[in-house]
């Protein structure tokens, strides 16, 4: 069996070490063998088999940091759009895949999944924003990365949501005074609004499925 390599994109946006550690644990629990590398090197990212784009933070500062690393955006576009490598975006990593983000003014995203990142606006004023804590997801379609996970509760912390142009890209939704997309994907691209790396067994299980996923 071939060793797979997973690149965790290191672009200085939040707690990337947690993501790396959770993926390492998931790798041990999976049927695959391989390495998990925290990297910002465009060449290493293009050469890897799978990519994880983690992150915590505001859209504006994160997209600026990502595009500020020489060659990184080009490498990601090449790996994801041309070479069709499986990618998992987490939280802001998912949001950056949108066409535009509206946190701190309008900013262009990677435009891998058409749509906008807009404020959460729960219609019950008693609901607090950020949406912070454990909430359940409702599957909108079957996706191999969500197979055989016992709990449907995951850890969320966000004030913005991904509103896709094509609703078919919604894999799961979550209710918080409104239904919003809690995971989205198309083809080799997948993103979760929640944090699998902070979601104990369910999250590690999801990451294991991602490692084993061949779209």
């Amino acid at each position: 069996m071939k060793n797979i390599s997973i690149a965790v994109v290191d672009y200085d946006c939040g707690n990337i070490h947690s993501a790396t550690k959770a993926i390492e644990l998931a790798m041990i629990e999976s049927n695959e063998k391989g390495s998990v590398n925290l990297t910002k090197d465009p060449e290493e990212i293009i050469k890897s088999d799978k990519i994880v784009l983690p992150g915590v933070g505001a859209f504006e500062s994160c997209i600026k940091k990502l595009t500020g690393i020489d060659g990184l955006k080009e490498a990601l576009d090449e790996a994801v759009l041309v070479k069709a490598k499986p990618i998992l975006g987490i939280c802001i990593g998912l949001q950056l895949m949108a066409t535009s983000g509206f946190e701190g003014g309008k900013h262009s995203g990677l435009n891998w999944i058409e749509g906008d990142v807009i404020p959460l606006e729960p219609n019950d004023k008693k609901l607090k924003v950020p949406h912070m804590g454990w909430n359940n997801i409702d599957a909108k379609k079957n996706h191999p990365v969500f197979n055989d996970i016992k709990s449907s509760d995951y850890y969320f912390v966000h004030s913005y949501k991904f509103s896709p142009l094509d609703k078919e890209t919604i894999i799961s939704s979550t209710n918080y005074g409104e239904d919003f997309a809690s995971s989205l994907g198309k083809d080799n691209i997948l993103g979760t609004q929640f944090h699998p790396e902070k979601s104990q067994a369910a999250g590690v299980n999801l990451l294991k499925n991602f490692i084993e996923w061949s779209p």
Partner: protein
Amino acid sequence: MLKTRIIPCLDVKDGRVVKGINFVDLIDAGDPIEVAKIYDRSGADELCFLDITASHEKRPILLDVVRKTAEQCFMPLTVGGGVRSVSDIQVLLSSGADKVSINTAAVDDPNLIYEASSIFGSQCIVVAIDAKLVSENNWEIFTHGGRTSTGINAVEFAKKVTSLGAGEILLTSMDKDGTKSGYDNDLLKAVSEEVSIPVIASGGVGKIEDLIDGVRIGGASAVLAASIFHFGEISIQDTKVAMSKAGISVRL
């Protein structure tokens, strides 16, 4: 549906857990990493580390603890104690903290909240408020571990830090802390009704019903407790079952 969070809180001094921890299967009760692992397995929804020594000289020990805990615990970790600047926050976050709790510095310089939330995002900026009842329905903030009175009204301050970009408020009643007689639900209610961000109840828990009251009466989004969990008096799971029976949505 969003679940109410149960958050055990560890007081850490010189890299060791203080206040007794009494788990049956715990090899080293003073090792915060061991304690964190047990809480991770027992279904705690988050974990909070409070560095009670909180000085810059001792910070490296805490950073090491945070790093090792984050490596082994797959749940959110809030770290607080002596956080005074954007660079303090940066260092804690890059060591593996998911959120940083700011107490005295938020009172001394509220602009730090604005600055920090602009840089790191509101989601990781927790403002810790320690309040004491000084007259009817008037709670005043105390800083420096409760030693310094500020003359600042807790509810007004909570509103102010919310508008500055705080993502969460950790609200401790100094009247109730350590009494095991329940949260100050009047204080909790006064703050949670006035701010749009989550409020974590803290200070005074002695039994499961206190946690339930903090949510039902106080309107807390999350409940924090230390000694009742540490001494093994009440397990996280028993707490969740009881809360669920009381009609509160929890992650079982």
